[in-house]
């Protein structure tokens, strides 16, 4: 492969850098024109020494930790020093064994594909669009009491859509941020001054600063083991839609899926579109429909993401059936930690649909002991209750 770096003396560098920028964009690294201009300047400042150039371009063009590996592979591929001798040899002896192409991660290969133009681009997957028949009121009524677990695929999609439309007003707490008002704990001096100016320096009344109401930060832990597969998808879709930033004040959402280990779904939740979120989540979760080892997953949460639990005011929703195959003692310990660190630990349990359900499985027993409350989430009516239950169960701290 020819190098994109070319020879600085021929003035090709700018073109090649632009090409590199395009390649990065194809790989999903967010690079805009302003960045590219800055990269140009940076390259002029540090010179064309390879390691320096790599460091400089990385500082300018990468802005997320997870993009670094992609950047480095692409940089190596695009700015490989032209090995003239090797190329000549290849021209003279067409049978000379070419170096095996390096193995790249899929994102990198995809971005490089147009450059390795010899290969045919793989045909794009056609997006299939299914139209659901409009639902009559009685259908909706029927679904309301149906169990998600027993829905056919198209019904399931309808339920998903319904679930998106149920508003979920999250409990709030008094944030440190303030807004001016007629009641509050502190004097709004700025406002007082402006009013006094209107009345010739006379303070007739004191505007006050009240603390803003902010929804409690939300930490959702979704069980994606085999027994929970459908609920997990539904609950994710529901929570994603119901806590979208468009609905009033932005909620801090941290979302993890757990089965045999922990997957951070927070990036997936940044998609505005629920289907895009589900697709992203589906790609991210490696242990979908596997077993459950909740204790280990929680230990991972404590070790790596403990700060996602903001100041003991986080509302933790554990969506699980409590059928756990891990070590019970560890699960108990980790749940106790989670309980201590959160405002409320709520267990959303799909198995509650069975009359006379008792949390006898070891995992379920631990969850039952540690959770502040257990809520049923097995049908739509219950989802509507969830909002009410949240308000009742969660007395905001302070």
């Amino acid at each position, binding site marked *: 492969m020819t190098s994109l770096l070319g020879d600085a003396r021929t003035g090709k560098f700018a073109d090649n850098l632009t090409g590199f920028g395009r390649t990065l964009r194809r790989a999903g690294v967010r690079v805009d024109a302003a960045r590219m201009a800055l990269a140009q300047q940076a390259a002029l400042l540090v010179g064309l020494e390879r390691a320096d150039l790599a460091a400089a371009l990385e500082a300018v063009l990468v802005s997320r930790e997870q993009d670094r590996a992609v950047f480095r592979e692409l940089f190596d591929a695009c700015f490989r020093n032209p090995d003239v001798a090797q190329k000549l040899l290849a021209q003279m002896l067409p049978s000379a064994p070419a170096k095996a192409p390096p193995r790249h991660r899929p994102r990198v290969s995809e971005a490089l594909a147009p450059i390795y133009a010899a290969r045919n681009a793989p045909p794009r997957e056609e997006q299939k669009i299914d139209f659901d028949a409009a639902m009559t009121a009685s259908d909706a009524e029927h679904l309301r009491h149906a169990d998600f677990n027993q829905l056919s695929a198209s019904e399931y999609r309808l339920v998903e859509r319904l679930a998106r439309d149920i508003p979920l007003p999250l409990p709030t707490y008094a944030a440190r941020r303030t807004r001016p008002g007629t009641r509050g704990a502190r004097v709004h001096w700025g406002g007082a001054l402006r009013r006094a100016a209107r009345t010739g320096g006379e303070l007739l009344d004191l505007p006050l600063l009240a603390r803003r109401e902010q929804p409690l930060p939300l930490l959702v832990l979704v069980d994606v083991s085999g027994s929970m597969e459908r609920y997990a998808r539904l609950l994710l879709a529901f929570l994603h839609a119901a806590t979208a930033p468009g609905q009033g004040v932005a909620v801090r959402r941290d979302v993890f899926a757990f089965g045999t280990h922990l997957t951070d779904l927070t990036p997936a939740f940044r998609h505005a579109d629920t289907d895009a979120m589900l697709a992203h989540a589906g790609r991210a979760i490696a242990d979908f429909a596997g077993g459950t080892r909740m204790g280990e997953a929680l230990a991972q949460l404590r070790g790596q993401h403990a700060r996602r639990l903001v*100041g003991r005011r986080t509302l933790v929703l554990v969506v699980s059936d409590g059928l756990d195959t891990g070590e019970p003692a560890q699960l108990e310990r980790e749940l106790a930690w989670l309980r201590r660190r959160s405002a409320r630990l709520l267990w959303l349990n799909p198995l509650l649909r069975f009359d006379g359900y008792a949390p006898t499985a070891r995992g379920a027993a631990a969850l039952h002991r540690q959770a502040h409350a257990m809520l049923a989430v097995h049908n739509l009516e219950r989802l509507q209750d969830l909002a009410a239950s949240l308000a009742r169960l969660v007395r905001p701290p302070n």
Partner: protein
Amino acid sequence: MTTAAGSIDALAQALQAEGYYADRRLATAAFLALKLQRPLLLEGEPGVGKTALAQALARVLGRALIRLQCYDGMEQREALYEWNYAAQLLHMRAAEGQGQSVEAVEREVYGSRYLIRRPLLQALQAPAPGAVLLIDEVDRADEPFEAFLLEYLGEYQVSIPEVGTVRAEATPITLLTSNRTRELHDAVKRRCLYHWLDYPERERELAIVRAQVPQAGDALSAQVAQFVARLRSQPFANAFQRAPGIAESVEWAKALVALDTLVLDPEVAVDTAGILFKQREDVAALTHELATQLLAPEPV
């Protein structure tokens, strides 16, 4: 600008003279931040030297270090500016009887002496050669706060309605740090250069320990650097929840010196585990047996 910012090497050496051992990639990023006058966003595990870089840069460049520690719920009045309202009110009452014109009173009330400057404004108004502004742990502040930063990060200016736009007298060198408890907004990132700080390799860590704790003997420093480097690497890293940072290894070396340790042995390592680890489980995880393994000579 001082000669330290003349080239990547010069900057790296100047930082080293201040006791900060930057690898070449970090030095390149810092060099570009100085030359391109862009804020530099540093991310990395706690204790890898994000804050220390700002301190060292300030000393190298002979600039004052202004630090804005972020926290949940931080507001504009704690980061940018606030009026001294009580004093303004007093002034207005006092001016009332003196028959001054409205404009004159207004000018004085919103004069600079009633303006309380918070770190961002201080950094903008710092006299030449300007300041080094450290916006520490941006991820702790909530998302609305990031919006306050945009004007500063992009244009090095802030707008105060009563005064107008305050532009930087000398462009402040700006560093942002984040422990990545949440992803920062793209708008902030677009305005910054970015560098991810890794734990240092063993030689660099050794150099840092030697420089910070000169009382420690060569053998002890080398052992400390090796012990910590192996702690952070597989398979040992799995046994712990949080790997010790550079600050911890330096503290540990100091403690070992205070205990008159000449050569590390598993006994001492276990006894002093509370300096390396700040979590009960991790302290307990460093058993005598594990410490013996960590101190064993490297398999060739």
